[in-house]
């Protein structure tokens, strides 16, 4: 019985993983390239790569997080907020994403004072 259950799990993983892994691997390649160029200061190219990554695999929280950072760096604050929120929706327990988002909110709140007219 245990052997049969293990076989079912193994087969399920074997069938599902390639499709999932293919999309994730392609997205991951884009994310890695994006990180590489962002570290060289080429943020526009990084945005292109990370937008592609989230298009390939919309469930990839790290790609949404990286995209949010790039938008923030380019001053596209509305887009950054949406991307951070998407990343957190996909991976709500990720402390690094949460920390990035908190820092972003701090800047965003600072630029929108409570009583402006």
């Amino acid at each position, binding site marked *: 019985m245990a052997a049969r259950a293990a076989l079912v799990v193994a087969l399920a993983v074997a069938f599902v*993983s390639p499709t999932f892994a293919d999309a*994730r691997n392609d997205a991951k390649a884009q994310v890695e390239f994006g990180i590489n160029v962002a570290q060289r200061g080429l943020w526009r190219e990084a945005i292109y790569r990370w937008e592609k990554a989230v298009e390939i695999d919309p469930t990839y929280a790290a790609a949404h997080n990286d995209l949010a950072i790039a938008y923030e760096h380019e001053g596209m604050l509305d887009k950054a907020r949406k991307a951070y929120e998407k990343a957190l929706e996909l991976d709500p327990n990720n402390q690094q994403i949460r920390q990035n988002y908190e820092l972003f909110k701090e800047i965003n709140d600072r630029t929108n004072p409570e009583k402006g007219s």
Partner: protein
Amino acid sequence: MTARIQKKDRNARSLALAAVSAVLAAVAIGCGTTYYEIPIETPIQPKMDVSPFQRVLVAGFVAGGNDEIDANQETVRLLRSQLRTKSQLKVIDADLLPLMEVAADSGGGAADEHPSPDNNVNSTQAPGVSLPKQIKEEKDLEPYERLFANTAYWKRIGEEFQNPLIVTGTVLFSPHSRSGYVQRDTEMYDSFGRRVVRPTRMYMERKGFILRPKFVFIDGRTGATMYSESYREEILYNAQQNTPALSSYFELMDRLVPNFLSTLSSQKIKGTRVLLK
């Protein structure tokens, strides 16, 4: 029979192992945890269009709350020096306007020659309203607010200084104390002699200051208010600590100055974020 059972057990074990490895591999593919810290600079667009102005006059502030420092003079000096280095506008060096006297002379702010719908309420207030000579708290500043809606007065100042952008407002810098439980990280050693940091709650009496500035930006060509914003910052120290009022004032202003500057010119806020793979 025994051999058959043993073989069956071995098969089941290897299948289970394979399944576990496959699951772990899938998890590893799905949850890569590599991260990279990266410095970023967030550009912040100015909240106001100051392109029609080449010059800025930091006229002065209606200030109070503390006798140890002249919050009016200190604020003017600080903002002028910040604008000189961090904005494109030419800063006009002029004597501070005696705003409290102006407000008193005109009875709580002179009546507007051309009242606009925005300041109708103010201009219907009877002249001769008594103004507090000493500003101790927020409500003492309220009667002075009318001065900023006095377009005729500001237009005249604008003409005198060739139509600059005028920065004025109110500053309340007041002492403050608070007691209660605060959470602090305390360093201690456990039974193995290892250093651990634990949050502990302790009752503390603290004193410090609250800074409440309101910056009002006036168009020197028309005398009309273009934009205004209010802030509140506070700082508290141990009751035993003796921190001079002036250093607290600068510490609090330091937090606000980037916000003030971002009203007039685009700023870049530096920070660090974590890129994930």
